[in-house]
């Protein structure tokens, strides 16, 4: 059974077919890239996957369970975590508090316990503090734990978003243009981070990206979207040489590395 199964997914915004009859699967441990020109519906699909939007048609299954009708915050419980195209950290909070937000859905103690400081509260709080430190250490951000998130350099903010998402223990991590605005060396570091996510946390990754170096360097499979529909799926080599993809995505002739985000 696939980890994620998207079946005939469509969403129409007042007649605009933003996503139309899209189907794909993601297996456990896979790193899949989703590419396509601007406006192809990539972020819309992320918003559908995390139940920010309700699909007009079609259904999404995580480990065989339908996500239909679940509130957005429950998607984390189902194993989906995401980052955002424009970084959306809690900037006034410390780095470690940002990571601890990722644990939030796991807590079972009540407000009363928190107010009256009962032992289960302390035990759990202590555990999350340690686990958050551990995650930051793994990603090499341990020494930044107590800084306000807004003070981090750009690349580190992107990384912290990944840490926060990983803290929720996802089975599938959705990265929305993680390399956007990064220079070459930052992108290189990002690739290491994504591999770390896969190897260390056994998390599948679905990423939207325009940076072809990153996409070709790290993705095991690509899904190409155009005008809200799947144009092609397959391994990077296959997709790169698909004449239809070249025409739709790059123009008839063009430099595949020349695309910005």
């Amino acid at each position, binding site marked *: 059974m696939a980890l994620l199964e998207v079946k005939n997914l469509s969403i129409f915004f007042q007649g605009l077919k933003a996503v139309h009859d899209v189907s794909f699967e993601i297996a456990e441990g896979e790193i899949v890239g989703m590419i396509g020109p601007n406006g192809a519906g990539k972020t819309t699909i992320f918003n559908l996957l995390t139940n920010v939007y309700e699909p007009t048609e079609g259904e999404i299954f995580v480990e065989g369970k339908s996500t239909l009708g679940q509130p957005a915050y429950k998607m*984390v419980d189902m194993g989906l975590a995401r980052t*955002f195209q424009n970084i959306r950290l809690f900037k006034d909070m410390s780095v470690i508090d940002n990571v601890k937000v990722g644990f939030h859905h796991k807590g079972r103690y009540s407000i009363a316990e928190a107010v009256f400081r009962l032992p289960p509260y302390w035990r759990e709080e202590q555990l999350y503090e340690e686990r958050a430190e551990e995650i930051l250490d793994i990603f090499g951000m341990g020494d930044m734990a107590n800084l306000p998130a807004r003070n981090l350099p750009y690349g580190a903010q992107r990384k912290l978003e990944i840490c926060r998402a990983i803290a*929720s223990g996802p089975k599938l991590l959705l990265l929305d243009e993680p390399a956007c605005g990064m220079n070459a060396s930052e992108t290189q570091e990002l690739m290491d981070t994504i591999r770390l996510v896969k190897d260390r946390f056994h998390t599948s990754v679905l990423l939207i990206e325009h940076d072809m170096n990153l996409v070709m360097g790290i993705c095991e499979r690509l899904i190409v979207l155009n005008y809200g529909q799947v144009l092609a799926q397959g391994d990077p080599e296959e997709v790169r040489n698909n004449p239809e993809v070249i025409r739709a995505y790059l123009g008839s002739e063009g430099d595949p590395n020349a695309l910005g985000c």
Partner: protein
Amino acid sequence: MYFVVQLLNGLQLGAIYALIALGYTMVYGVIKLINFAHGDLMMMAAYFALIAMAKGAHPLLALAISIIMTTVLGVLIERIAYKPLRKSSRLSALITAIGVSLLLQNVAMLIWGSGAKTYPNLQASLPSFNIGHNTISSLSIITVVLAVLVMIGLYFFVEKSKVGTAMRAVSEDMEAAELMGINVNHTISATFAIGSALAALAAFLLCAAYPQVTPYIGAMPGIKAFIAAVIGGIGIVPGAMVGGFILGIIEALTKGFIPSQYSALSDAVVFAILIVVLLIKPSGIFGKVQGEKV
């Protein structure tokens, strides 16, 4: 000595303002709504405690009952009146809050009448002591200590606990918080619950000191507590506390030291201070100056 007594009166009054201001500030911090019904919620709490005591409940039991009922009422108001407007403009929510405020006042008038009801004299049952020619009630000291303890507890709750972390996350980016697995509705309910419980405590302490209840007792303390929250920096927990105390002390000292025929001036002084603060540091004493990025 007279000065010390007035100062203590000011601290007592300030502690009550501070408790109410904490409710304003918590709600504003999380959903950016100035809950103008908050003072009237406090008024309802005063009636709840009064009824419980009239039925023979011990004052502390009456306080507990009042806290529970006020909390439920506060959460219900959020669910019914504010939640449907969460995605509307802030102005719509603000006007709704004013509507809720008037509604509560009129409901109270309908149920309990517009006349003043006398609160049991709780202060008399507490020990008092003399400094020089002046008597000081231990109620003043209890009020101040209780308010400070509550503020410290609340500060650590917001900064350290997981629910508090969720509140801060929702405050910064509601949608992102939801996508990180935070139940936004529960978090906002928790915020209203805490604010309402503090209002109930404030009502009890207020009526213990000034033992009269009318449907309007929430209005003026509500506005002053709001001013206290703004002076301290709205949305900031310690700011509400400091703002409350500053306001209470200034009010008590103006009342104590200007001739009694001008005592109504004390309110004018309070509002004048608000204007001064808004002119000099609009974000309040503890508020961060928000630079606008262009």
